[in-house]
């Protein structure tokens, strides 16, 4: 059990150490996250190609998890900026599954509706809607729904690209559908029930 140590009292802390957020995130992450093992070395932030666009570096975010700063962590744009390049993952001396922790934080932010910018969550959700309907990704449907909603002003500049992709047969007009869509739907339905009970 966590308790008020002398050090925490001397540091002026009024709360006892509470690692429940850290443990929750760790448990919700695929594989064995090693999140508890973070030594705050900062190799992750130093390796990150997009750290400049993040509210917090991964290291800082993990310190915030340990400090139980639930709201701040789930509102951070960091997991949404992460490009899953795994540079930090192969360099982390503690083998923290950093990219997978980011996926966990995204799903927690979605469930608690705590993200600040809806562009990325909507994109993920639209992509998943396509899969749950067709079993395959459907780029034209995804792109048109997403751009009309979030980047209408990018559309004129993207016309040549879209035109090129369609005329070269690189973007299908109609979606492809798998044969056993019922089977996939049933599997996903059961998986969602299991997600709630875990």
């Amino acid at each position, binding site marked *: 059990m966590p308790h008020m140590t002398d050090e925490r009292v001397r540091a002026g802390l009024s709360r006892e150490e509470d690692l429940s957020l850290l443990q929750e995130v760790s448990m919700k992450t695929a594989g064995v996250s090693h999140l508890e093992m973070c030594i705050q070395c900062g190799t992750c932030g130093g390796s990150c190609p997009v750290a400049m666009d993040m509210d917090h570096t991964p290291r800082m975010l993990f310190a915030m998890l340990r400090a139980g700063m639930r709201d701040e962590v789930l509102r951070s744009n960091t997991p949404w900026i992460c490009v899953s390049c795994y540079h930090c993952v192969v360099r982390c001396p503690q083998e923290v599954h950093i990219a997978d922790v980011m996926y966990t934080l995204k799903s927690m932010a979605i469930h608690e509706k705590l993200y600040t910018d809806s562009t990325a969550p909507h994109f993920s959700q639209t992509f998943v809607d396509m899969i749950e309907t067709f079993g395959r990704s459907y780029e034209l449907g995804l792109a048109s729904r997403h751009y009309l909603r979030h980047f209408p002003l990018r559309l004129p500049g993207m016309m*040549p690209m879209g035109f090129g992709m369609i005329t070269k047969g690189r973007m299908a007009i109609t979606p492809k559908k798998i044969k056993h869509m019922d089977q996939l739907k049933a599997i996903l339905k059961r998986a969602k029930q299991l997600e709630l009970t875990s």
Partner: protein
Amino acid sequence: MNKYLLYPGCSMESSGKAYGESINAILEPLDIQFEEIDDWNCCGATEYLGINLIPAYSLIARNLALASRQSAAQMDGTRTVVAPCSACYLNLAKADYYMQERPSLGVKVNEALAVGDLQYRAGTLDVRHLIDILVYDVGLETIRSKVVRPLHGLKVVPYMGCMLPRPDYQHRWSDHEHPTELDDLLRALGADVIDYPLTTSCCGGHMTQIGPETAFELIRRLVADADERGALLMATVCPMCQMNVDAYQNEMNQYFGTDYHMPILFFTQLMGLAFGRKPEEVGIGLELVSSRNALASIGVEVPVTQEPMAPRQKDEGLPMPRRWTKHEGKEAVK
């Protein structure tokens, strides 16, 4: 004869069509046989994992379950699943690995699969990327022996991307940050391979869709460095990397006010050319940043195909929303 199960992935029939066509063109000379996984579904890319854990892994595992059933149904069934797309490769490998590392995940995924009368015992299949089997099963010697039109003088940078060499659950690659598999393969084709330290830097992934400023900077770094090093062409192993560097290069140029022209082809297209196939047989011309000039430098003639519309350059005619640029970008989107 090398025989494998194939997980093509969604992009192989759409944005990465050139990859699919060129793969088909090199199978016969290399004596490879692919058997497609029947009724495979999308792997979820990098999107589903960030929404729901168990459904995301069940979606991936359905493919592994179908593959293991197909493998078991054959007398000489191969246990190797080949994925040519780096994102598919990573997702399949990741599900297989984490279902073992965290057995409770495996139990739940199998509980979901059971509803569809499927199951997958993690560890029964080997998930490998196309370039892995080409370099390590087929071998560079065999590849070299099939070259009838060496790509001598073709200045190319090898672009491996990030999701292939990392996180590398099964220790398949020579290095996580500077792997040499693609360099070696391109050299076997006779190409003039230029050292490319950014070979495993990120192309931006889905950020071209959700945070273009972030993605444009990553694309700029890749293209600018390849250009500075004198490359005429980039070679890639991943449909996502190809799509980002190729289809968004024009928008990236507009955003930074630059004028790069850096074509990017799939490594299998270059293999096809070196094996004597015609450019149009290996999907050359499907790229938006044309590789005509780069290939002309080694005497390969690419037939003219229809080029995409040029963007309107002057502010004339109907009033249009302002062009997306670095300085105006943020205000323009809001």
